[in-house]
């Protein structure tokens, strides 16, 4: 019975807690911070390239997300990762804190540094163009 009460409350609270946003808002914000226009081509290049600055087990974003962001990826532990492209997975790129957390981790794992705002805008531009 308890769940019947909690569920509507959660649904009400969700938009507040999740800092909801949209891919285009994210692109707009990161572009404003970067001061350059986002480029889907540069985003794709960053995403699919092999890098050397990061941790040896994760040379590329595609290590976990796969080459096609419209399809599911696979973590190194065998756990599937839902597709990144918003068209294939509408929940993607709708939560600023979540996006920031994973850019922080993943850029550090793959590049050995934080991604710049411009790079983030590029990647999101590419992902939402698919």
């Amino acid at each position, binding site marked *: 019975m308890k769940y019947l009460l909690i569920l509507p409350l959660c649904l009400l609270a969700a938009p507040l807690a999740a800092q909801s946003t949209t891919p285009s808002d994210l692109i707009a914000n990161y572009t404003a911070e970067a001061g350059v226009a986002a480029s889907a081509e540069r985003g794709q290049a960053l995403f699919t390239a092999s890098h050397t600055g990061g*941790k040896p087990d994760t040379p590329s974003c595609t290590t976990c997300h796969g080459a096609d962001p419209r399809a599911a990826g*696979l973590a*190194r532990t065998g756990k599937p990762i839902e597709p990144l492209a918003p068209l294939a997975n509408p929940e993607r790129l709708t939560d600023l804190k979540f996006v920031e957390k994973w850019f922080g981790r993943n850029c550090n794992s793959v590049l050995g540094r934080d991604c710049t705002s411009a790079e983030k805008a590029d990647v999101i531009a590419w992902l939402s163009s698919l």
Partner: protein
Amino acid sequence: MTDATTTEISIRPERVRVWDIWVRLFHWLLVASITIVAVTGFLFDASWIALHIVAGLSAVALVVARVIWGFLGPTHARFANFLRRPAVVLSHLTGKESGRYLGHNPAGGVMMLGLMGIVLMLGVTGLAGLGGVLRTGPLLSLPYPVGAAGLEIHEALAVLLLVMILAHIAAAIFESRRSRENLVRSMLSGTKESRPGDHTGHPERARPFIALFLILGLAVTATLLLPNGGRAPVGAPVAELDASFDDECSACHLAYHPSLLTGSEWRALMAGLEDHYGEDASLDPETTARITDWLVAHDAATVQTRPARMFAGTLGTSAVSMTDSRVWNHLHEDVREEIFLRAPVYSKSNCSACHGDAETGWFSPFHIQIPKEPSK
């Protein structure tokens, strides 16, 4: 022990009933259940536990019924007919005493008693292990070390039982040769050739209704007592996962249960999330602190489970992860390496692919199932 008929030699040997239908049914059903229990126990992996237990309990039930029949059955079913004083057993074994026993001979009687006793002890030690180690069944709140000791004894008794069964088979073949009769066939047909000078023993009438009544009474008592009746075992792993932990620590893998590791292992792991098994899994300080506290509060020391006893303490000393610890690899040595690499498992650390209850921390053998590779 001789009677009038034994002095005259008949031309065509008369066959007499020795083993009644219940003794024969008992014997062959016991053969079947012990075969299943031995194959599942010695040869098959832990995921066969349910069949192993069913077959084992069947063997115990059969022996209990046979013990009752040993007091209430017909002549040759009775203990009084085949359990004899040590001196008689000895003189039979040394061959001093001749004469054929229509029922079990004195040495065979000792073997019967031994086999039945071992089967009963295997049942008790098995239930102790099920209770103390796997924390289920009628003895589910036995302390873990008692259950573990029970399992050790269980394994030793199982080997002993195998040896005794081999001896029993060898003796049956030997006796068949020596007395020129097929004892195995007698256990099927129930009859033996009557010969002059046979030890037949004191004739007894069976009391089937009293026996049936007793056996049914015991069966009802057992079905009432054996299930654990929904009692929760002492030392169960925490069932409700902390929300932050469940959110943050299940993105890249299943949420490894806090009871798998010690508090100090969790502290060390949580202090190094920036470089977590070759990945950055960093969190903000408040979330890190909250998850660390929760993990430490429900660590291996708070539970009495098999995985906690096996894995806790392996990290940081001899192994980086559970999957490269000695104990983990020993447990999984019969799982072919390629199974871990192929779909849908992909990795040894993907415990939940094969252990349906991995996130509960139990890793019970009742929930092991290696998934089939999906056809492309």
